[in-house]
């Protein structure tokens, strides 16, 4: 008589040290093997899309910082401001465009550093967390002196940026670039060559290219599966068409590939920042836009490459001083779709590694 086993339902979250927020996962187990995963979302649903209809275009800049992906506040501001500028046909001065690009890339590095630290903790490498946070504090200092906020900087405005960079900021930013490139090989020593880390990530959680496309994955998750798509190259905004950078693409599609793609993205970000700092023109930083801005009737879709992937905003205006309808296309939400496909068939210990590798932010998933 064959041994009969029953499936076990395991409830992970919402309070779980490795769920990166308040995600609940209902994992169906057959012994050690994962049969099915059902993510239960909505624990951080803050009804941002509805709230945006009741706030003016300027006030919404403060809201998208908090309501959307809080690890990359600048990227949210960028996509909102971009949508408004496209609809209102508002010109942005050249200097403001460069400043925005620098800030966006700094934000990408800081977001990836948080991911690196928490991914390290999930896999038992506490030192990586401490070191990533040490580097991140330097970016926070740069942000604080330029924008006044550490996490939420209401810095971008429709038609430019709020304030010019303070004196000596560009030198400090250059200094940070040098420092950061010096530090990156340390992560190679700590994680990339570490056999324990390799054993837990290499070949784990493979997402094939066709599944990645079918599930709508974007950003580093899709690029690690071999999809060479980046909004910065495909639909350039700000000054991305004028700077040189490469899109890191891996074909393996496992956790290790996602790790390598993000590490390489940080190097490319430093490259972009350096080019922008070199070419930073002098001049105006903000074109004149009324506080109570009224956008013309119409609709627009703006998309940017946030640290998590393809972030889009669909904005409908009926000519009033506040939007008629806003729809946010959140990259983390689409990447979460691919989660079930990635986890099926792996051991229960790999669930955390796979979840950590796709870098979800629950605020972006639930909005």
């Amino acid at each position, binding site marked *: 008589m064959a041994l009969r086993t029953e499936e076990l339902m395991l409830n992970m979250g919402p309070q779980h040290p490795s769920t990166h927020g308040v995600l609940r996962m209902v994992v169906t187990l057959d012994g050690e*093997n994962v049969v099915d995963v059902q993510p239960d979302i909505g624990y951080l649903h803050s009804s941002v899309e509805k709230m945006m209809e009741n*706030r003016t275009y*300027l*006030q*919404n*800049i*403060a*809201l998208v*910082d*908090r309501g959307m992906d809080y690890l990359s506040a600048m990227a949210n501001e960028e996509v909102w401001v971009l949508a408004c500028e496209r609809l209102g046909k508002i010109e942005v001065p050249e200097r403001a465009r460069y400043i925005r690009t620098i800030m966006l890339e700094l934000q990408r590095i800081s977001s990836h550093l948080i991911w690196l630290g928490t991914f390290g903790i999930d896999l038992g490498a506490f*030192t990586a967390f401490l*070191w990533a946070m*040490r580097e991140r*504090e330097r970016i926070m*200092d740069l942000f*604080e*002196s*330029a*924008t*006044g*906020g550490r996490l*939420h900087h*209401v810095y971008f405005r429709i038609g430019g940026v*709020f*304030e010019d960079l*303070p004196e000596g900021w560009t030198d400090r930013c250059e200094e940070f670039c040098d420092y950061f490139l010096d530090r990156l090989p*340390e992560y190679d*020593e*700590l994680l990339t*060559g*570490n*056999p*324990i880390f390799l*054993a837990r990530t290499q*070949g*784990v959680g*493979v997402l094939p290219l066709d599944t990645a496309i079918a599930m709508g994955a974007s950003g580093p998750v899709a690029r690690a599966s071999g999809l060479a798509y980046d909004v910065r190259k495909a639909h350039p905004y700000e000054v991305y068409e004028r700077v040189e950078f490469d899109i890191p693409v891996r074909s393996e599609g496992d956790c290790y590939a996602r790790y390598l793609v993000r590490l390489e993205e940080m190097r490319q970000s430093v490259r972009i920042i350096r080019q922008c700092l070199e070419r930073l023109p002098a001049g105006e930083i903000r074109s004149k836009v009324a*506080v109570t801005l009224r956008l013309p009737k119409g609709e627009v879709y703006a998309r940017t490459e946030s640290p998590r992937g393809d972030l889009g905003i669909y904005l409908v205006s009926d000519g009033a001083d506040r939007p008629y309808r806003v729809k946010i296309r959140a990259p983390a939400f689409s990447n979460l779709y691919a989660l079930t496909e990635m986890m099926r*068939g*792996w*051991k229960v210990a*790999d669930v955390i590694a796979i979840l950590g590798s796709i870098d979800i932010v629950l605020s972006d998933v639930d909005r």
Partner: protein
Amino acid sequence: MSAQMMPHSDGRRSRMVRIVAGMVGLVVGLKSTLRAMFEPKVTVSYPLQKLNVSPRWHGLLALPIDPETDNDKCIICFQCERVCPDRCIHIEATGKAKDRLLTRFDIEMDKCCYCGLCVEVCPTEAIVFVPHYEASTYNRANLLYDLDDLHRAAPKEPIATGVVKVRQ
């Protein structure tokens, strides 16, 4: 599916090779950890040492006193009240035209999101950020700042000075 079921089986490398590789990895990792031990310290012992907060830091809000008129610079234009995304500023005034008198200027600091839009739209720079962030309380009612609190919150001198200055 069956190949996926056994992700950790590694038939190509012998156990010995893997053990040696693991030890080498450990030594490399420990070496970088050891190197970090002799680097300059990054920790700030907060209550004793304080970081220099940037002048643009979005700290608490205040209405500084103008020494010329011995009053704040508010001209009661209600712009900050209107622009506040959290609607946490409440202003009331009596009188008409130039004789207007500020009777109420409340900021709910617990509702405030420190976005700085009120500071941006103020035409007379009456409302400012102060580089001050230590305001935790036992009682939520203390976080409603009225006119007196906002006058008092304005610093006579910069609060944070020097990168690391040990408090006497």
